[in-house]
């Protein structure tokens, strides 16, 4: 009994230390945006909402959020549509070599990382005139996300019954109609998971956006934030902290949405 109590005490102390370690860097994010004159040290703020008004006037802040939305939304749409088409066909038809193909794709997506591919990707984008375009970021990111997306969606599709599709076919529906009106609604949780995962990946992603976009007018929030605190003299703390908070909220909201609605299973990538 004593051993139990001591163990419980030790574990509580351990949890408190871990809690402090993880919460410490975040305190600043919670306090500085509301602070009248934020310093880099975490402190109890002189409460104000003025910083949020300032950010609306900054030319790059809102524009970069729009860029993040274009790039993230574009990649999410492209990945969902292409992955759904491919996963459906692979789930319903025995294409020769299907299982080998799926394994190869998975292998590729984990091996060809941004680090390993940044040089050829930069070269490729330069030659295809995709530097400083939203499309470039969307295509490059989608290529990396698709294999895992197909894999996960195929799993969802394998679990849906095929009887509806058979009867729809009897009534003369085309394959695309069947896919759109019968299969899609059945696998909606899967589609939502993939869409949120893709959007969150692009939203928080840095490397590809950083090397493919030189023009600050095209840069997403993640890159603008980096330039704000690394370039040009004293960082404007009020601006940076407020922007950090604004930029983090959608990701947290998306995460909460998926985990509450569909139950969070860690499909590895649901983060960044």
């Amino acid at each position, binding site marked *: 009994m004593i051993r139990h109590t001591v163990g419980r005490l030790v574990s509580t102390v351990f949890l408190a230390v871990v809690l402090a370690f993880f919460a410490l860097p975040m*305190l600043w994010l919670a306090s500085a945006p509301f602070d009248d004159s934020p310093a880099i040290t975490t402190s109890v703020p002189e409460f104000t909402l003025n910083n949020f008004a300032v950010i609306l006037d900054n030319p790059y802040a809102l524009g970069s959020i729009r860029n993040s939305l274009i790039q993230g939304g574009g990649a999410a749409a492209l990945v969902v549509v292409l992955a759904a088409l491919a996963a*459906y066909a692979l789930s319903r*038809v025995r294409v020769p070599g299907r299982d080998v193909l799926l394994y190869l794709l998975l292998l590729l997506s984990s091996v060809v990382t941004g680090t390993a591919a940044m*040089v050829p990707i930069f070269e490729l984008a330069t030659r295809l005139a995709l530097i400083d375009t939203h499309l470039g970021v969307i295509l490059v990111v989608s290529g990396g996300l698709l294999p895992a997306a197909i*894999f996960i969606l195929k799993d969802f599709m394998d679990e849906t019954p095929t009887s509806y599709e058979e009867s729809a076919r009897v009534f003369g529906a085309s394959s695309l109609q069947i896919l759109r009106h019968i299969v899609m609604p059945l696998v909606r949780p899967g589609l939502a998971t993939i869409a949120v995962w893709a959007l969150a990946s692009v939203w928080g992603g840095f490397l590809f956006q950083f090397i493919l976009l030189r023009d600050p007018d095209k840069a997403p929030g993640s890159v603008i934030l980096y330039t704000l605190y690394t370039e040009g003299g004293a960082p404007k703390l009020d601006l940076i902290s407020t922007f950090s908070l604004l930029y983090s909220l959608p990701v947290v909201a998306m995460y909460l949405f998926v985990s509450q609605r569909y139950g969070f299973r860690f499909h590895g990538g649901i983060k960044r």
Partner: protein
Amino acid sequence: MARPMSAVDAAGLGRGRAVGFVLPALVLIGVFLVFPALWTIYLGLTDYRLTGLAAANPQVVGLDNYTDALRDPRFLGSLWLTVGYVGGSAVLGQAVLGFALAWVLRTRTGRLRRLVEGVVLLSWILPSTVVGFLWFALLDRDDGTLNALLNTPGFAWLLDHPLLSIIVFNVWRGTAFSMMLYSAALENVPPSHLETARLAGASVFQQLRDVVLPLIRRHVLTNLLLISLWTFNDFTPFVLTGGGPEGRSEILPIYVYNVALRGGELGAGAAVSFLILLINLAFALVYLRLLRDRRRREAALTGGPPA
């Protein structure tokens, strides 16, 4: 549609249309994933540069880039830093802290558990540049929160201990994955086994070694492989230190960026990229072997975080 359909082809797609459905995805993957991987091999054999003479007319130089790299103290130093970074932050840091959290939280319910899980997860899902700046503010020399707390004004963490800084940073950033994986794994350990061991007088260490570890061995292996692979390819420390000072936190991903895209030596950078690719391949092949007779759904883990 007169052709008889096999039983599996319920939607009547037929092979032709099935291929048509798969093709757009395959083309995109082919152009932006497979082709770059292959092109790295070629680029790595040339003296290709971003600007200058070798930019217009690159020459094939064979294995020169590789032999140069292996003689270059900067590359070898970067390699060792990477080993330290992966070993320290992934294997020792994330895996051990993640398991400890899963183990301790397993018997807890209520507010403390939700709070701890919440902050650990939050540090995982925040955008990387936001996280970079939070740590920048925490470790700042003059006004950083850490110096204020420890009463060590003026201590330059990022300058004096750059590797330690990015190791601790990555433990903070990535422990959530290990915590969740081990939490799921520990659910497979029957409480009665632990109870029996406890009644027999086994210490916590003995319980872990003799009861828990044999049951979750595959999870441990999966965890170590994946977090090592991800950490090995992690570019995020760039937003904190940029590889500096004087290359003392220049892990391989940052080395490639600095050499190829900042320094303009695309050929030399591509050669190192290819080495990274080979090491990734070794990790992934071991992982897929492990996975072969497991449920498909867990394979989705390989989705992994993009850089």
